[in-house]
């Protein structure tokens, strides 16, 4: 472990700083609230000569990701960032990035989708993209935003993986709040993350075709091959995180278990809310309540085995979703967890809550209410159907 510099930065600044230290060859991005600070800071780094990246100011997010794909295929280390409508505009390119096996790191500063127009944080944007074949990482705080951005490059560019990675941080709650983070020195980041070694190179002497047509005779095989790379992601993530902890002293896994080992009831969720939930769980422990919290760090690919193992002794569970999947049985994470419990024949009562849409705050008091509800369903051993809302005015 090495000495680290403590810096006071917002989540966006933490990402921009990490990205700078990773020395991307190409950054193509379009500014959008609440991601804007990432792009602003990065362009300042370029203007000041602090980083030698080609910064491409594009006319839209569709073009931003298109430029990133081209650069990635040419062998460059590539970074971009977006939010909400920007991610929606990138949608078709998301599948092309993963289908062409492009290493790209994209910070997604999660924000609600219009309509109604809103600029604040929820997970609607990323949930609409969750089947696009990207690796989706969720941050609880700015430190994680910094650490995961650096690790994401290593994961994305690994020759066993070659898949794009999104690093998700909650709009405003993380992106615009200033926190102290510990930053590695530039030298150590360079040591952890040497320049990218491209899997294919563009060479006029040995021409190759990228993005060729694949009809019913080959499309399925190429998708099957892509899915296989996805299966290696979780173990690779753990391997990279172990290496990163030697540099930073900070240990990460695909899930973050807090007081889970001896807990009777638990709450599962993603993003900054996990920080609030940990605070509440600590308070409840003082009152003798055996409560735990699980934060999902890698959402896609889904860490099924790790989650089920951690839940071994849990009697009842709440799943928190900061997104709706209108008309579905449950909200996105709710669906995943319910399916997982069925697959492992682990029948415990669970309750799925949708909260915080459009940046609506979730308070510690509401999280206490959620833990009380879990206690109730644990006692009754009943399974509430579908999902419920918390923090919305019903009357």
């Amino acid at each position, binding site marked *: 472990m090495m000495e680290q510099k403590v810096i006071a930065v917002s989540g966006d600044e933490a990402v921009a700083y990490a990205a700078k230290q990773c020395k991307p060859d190409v950054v193509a991005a379009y500014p959008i609230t609440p991601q804007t600070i990432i792009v602003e800071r990065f362009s300042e780094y370029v203007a000041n000569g602090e980083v030698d990246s080609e910064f491409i100011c594009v006319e839209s997010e569709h073009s931003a990701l298109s430029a990133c794909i081209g650069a990635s295929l040419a062998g460059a280390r590539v970074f971009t960032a977006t939010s909400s409508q920007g991610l929606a505009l990138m949608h078709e390119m998301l599948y092309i990035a993963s289908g062409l096996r492009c290493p790209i790191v994209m910070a997604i500063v999660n924000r609600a989708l219009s309509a109604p127009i809103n600029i604040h944080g929820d997970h609607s944007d990323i949930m609409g993209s969750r089947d696009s074949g990207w690796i989706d990482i969720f941050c609880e705080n700015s430190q994680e935003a910094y650490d995961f951005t650096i690790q994401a490059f290593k994961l994305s560019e690994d020759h066993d993986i070659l898949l794009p990675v999104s690093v998700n941080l909650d709009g405003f709650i993380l992106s615009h709040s200033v926190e102290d983070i510990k930053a590695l020195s530039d030298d150590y980041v360079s040591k952890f993350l040497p320049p990218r070694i491209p899997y294919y190179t563009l060479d006029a002497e040995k021409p*190759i075709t990228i993005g060729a047509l694949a009809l019913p005779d080959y499309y399925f095989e190429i998708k099957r091959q892509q899915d296989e790379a996805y299966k290696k992601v979780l173990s690779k993530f753990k391997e990279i995180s172990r290496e990163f902890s030697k540099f930073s002293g900070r240990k990460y896994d695909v899930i973050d278990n807090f007081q889970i080992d001896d807990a009777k009831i638990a709450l599962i969720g993603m993003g900054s809310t996990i920080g609030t939930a940990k605070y509440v769980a600590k308070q409840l422990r003082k009152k003798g309540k055996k409560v735990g919290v699980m934060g999902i760090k890698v959402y896609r690919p889904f860490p099924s085995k790790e989650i089920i193992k951690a839940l071994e002794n849990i009697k009842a569970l709440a799943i928190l979703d900061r997104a709706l999947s209108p008309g579905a049985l449950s909200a996105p994470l709710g669906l995943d967890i319910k399916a997982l419990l069925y697959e492992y024949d682990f029948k415990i009562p669970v309750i799925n809550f949708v909260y915080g849409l459009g940046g609506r705050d979730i308070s510690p008091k509401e999280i206490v209410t959620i833990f009380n509800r879990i206690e109730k369903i644990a006692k009754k051993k009943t399974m509430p159907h579908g999902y419920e809302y918390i923090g919305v005015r019903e009357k």
Partner: protein
Amino acid sequence: MSKLKSWKELPIGGVILEAGSSLEYKTGSWRSQRPIINREKCIGCLFCWIYCPDSAIIRAEDGKVDVNYDYCKGCGICAAECPVHVIIMKEE
């Protein structure tokens, strides 16, 4: 056609490692109608040669034209454009 490959045998990301491999893809198998040229009446104007979207019309040494049926998809543009109406489309 050669044996279809499994996902394990394919280059990562569906990349094609040899240049010019489209020559091996005989798109003529898509054809449902075949253009037949009446060479006796062909005036060698080369309209069909210009218009063919697949470059499947071949210029012959006598100044007239033939069809490369390996790549002709049977779209019928040649027959539609022929000013002397000597190309007919016949069901395969």
